[in-house]
């Protein structure tokens, strides 16, 4: 039985420029994917850490008296909104000082503040001033730390990583648009005769532009799949393999895996931007240079 005749592609599929272009676009998608995943992991990790910081507070018993610490714990446990509270030991407090004073240089009679760890049922409630007031009314000489200083520092860090990633992504997209425009113009020049024939048999500019646009969308999707695949392997390797440079990723490995959806988005956006760029490059070129 005779095979069904299908519509053939009007642009040749075996263009010799496609190989190098595929390679370059794969690298772009790889770098863009890494950048986007890094930003997503950073933002998500910081949000996770801030959530943890907001749901706990630390009460510092300055005289280092375990009885005072225990009194504070009992008062705190009765407060609405407090999930749990427990006092650390003097040994734990000494361990916190060891990085600065050394393990042998802390005299037994040195008054070391004892820390009381407070877990809240809802983040940020009750607030630190309410906790401090209640403990002060009971005559306890303590200070309350709600970790806001660290939360703000984390927010600033996350914003920096976000901005940096957005800048890198913008740079990569701009470069890709420039390369796609250049490649499209080269393709048009190489297929000048073909474009003229299409014109003369009645093709509109938009039809010819669509052919080039589609070609670049397909090229973008193919190179995107490779680039994003390489990026996924790299990110997974860093998170699972425990490479030192990726320690920040390892901290929230679960969060990191959750952000791999970005790897689907980057090639898709790259393909759409590539197709759009090719389409409008062709339209502009035809209007400028063709009858």
């Amino acid at each position, binding site marked *: 039985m005779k095979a069904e005749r299908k*519509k053939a592609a009007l642009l040749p599929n075996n263009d010799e420029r496609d190989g190098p272009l595929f390679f370059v676009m794969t690298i772009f998608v790889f770098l863009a994917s890494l950048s986007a995943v890094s930003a997503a992991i950073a933002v998500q990790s910081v949000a996770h850490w801030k959530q943890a910081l907001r749901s706990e507070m630390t009460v510092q018993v300055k005289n280092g008296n375990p009885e005072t610490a225990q009194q504070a714990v009992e008062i705190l446990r009765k407060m609405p909104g407090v999930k749990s509270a427990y006092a650390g030991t003097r040994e734990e407090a000494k361990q916190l000082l060891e990085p600065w004073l050394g393990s042998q240089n802390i005299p037994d009679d040195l008054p070391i503040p004892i820390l009381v760890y407070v877990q809240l049922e809802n983040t940020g409630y009750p607030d630190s001033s309410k906790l401090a007031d209640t403990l002060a009314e009971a005559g306890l000489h303590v200070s309350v730390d709600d970790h806001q200083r660290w939360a703000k520092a984390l927010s600033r860090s996350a914003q920096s990583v976000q901005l940096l990633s957005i800048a890198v992504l913008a740079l990569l997209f701009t470069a890709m648009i420039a390369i796609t425009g250049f490649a499209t113009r080269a393709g048009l020049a190489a297929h000048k005769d*073909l474009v003229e024939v299409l014109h003369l*048999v*009645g093709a509109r*500019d938009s039809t010819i532009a669509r052919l080039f646009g589609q070609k670049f969308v397909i090229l973008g999707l193919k190179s995107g799949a490779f680039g994003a695949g390489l990026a996924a392997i790299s990110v997974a390797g860093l998170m699972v393999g425990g490479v030192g440079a990726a320690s920040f990723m390892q901290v929230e490995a679960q969060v990191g895996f959750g952000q791999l959806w970005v790897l689907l988005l980057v090639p898709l956006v790259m393909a759409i931007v590539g197709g759009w760029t090719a389409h409008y490059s062709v339209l502009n070129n035809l209007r400028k240079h063709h009858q």
Partner: protein
Amino acid sequence: MSPILSLSHIGLRYGNGPEVLQDINLELQQGSMQFLTGPSGAGKTSLLRLIYLALRPSRGFVQLFGRDASLASRDELALLRRRIGVVFQGFELLNHLSVFENVALPLRFTGKRHDSYKRDVEDLLSWVGLGKMLDALPDTLSGGEKQRVAIARAVVAKPDILIADEPTGNVDPQMGQRLMRLFSELNRLGTTVLIASHDIGLIETFPVDVYTLVDGRLSFRAGKNKGGRT
């Protein structure tokens, strides 16, 4: 009756060069058939390119189907070109497409479904003797076969005007006669036909108007039917 094509005081120059066409006036009536002849380098192909809207004139007006081509938008030009079938002297076949796809090309841009024209294209290719070469690539064809593909592509969409630049130059006399009968048949069905040819013997066998182009200037000799005037 208003002409289907009208050229008024047309001049054409490439860049800053001399005028290759000078003060050309030409009118083609709907349903007429005529030849364009003249020595090599006289400007026949340039004149045909003006008519099928591949070039804009340096001066003068081209009116097609009652529309001033110089005022037409690019989309309108595409629609006007769909009403003109062209057999190019160099064939201009797309080498990555099969014979079938080359011939079906004009139909793809009309919005018709592939299924609706598949049979028509196959029948037309059978008629020009290429029924067994539907899937062949142009590079594998002889000059005469390529010419027949080019002719099939020009007529497949049943154009209002058929322009052929040396359509029988690469085929044997028998096939030449057969193709000319195709052109005559299309003309009988209402298609306006303009054929550029060197072949005086061929021209003399048809009692139609003849335009002669010499050194960029056009002259007219009426045939037995009065299809066109200069």
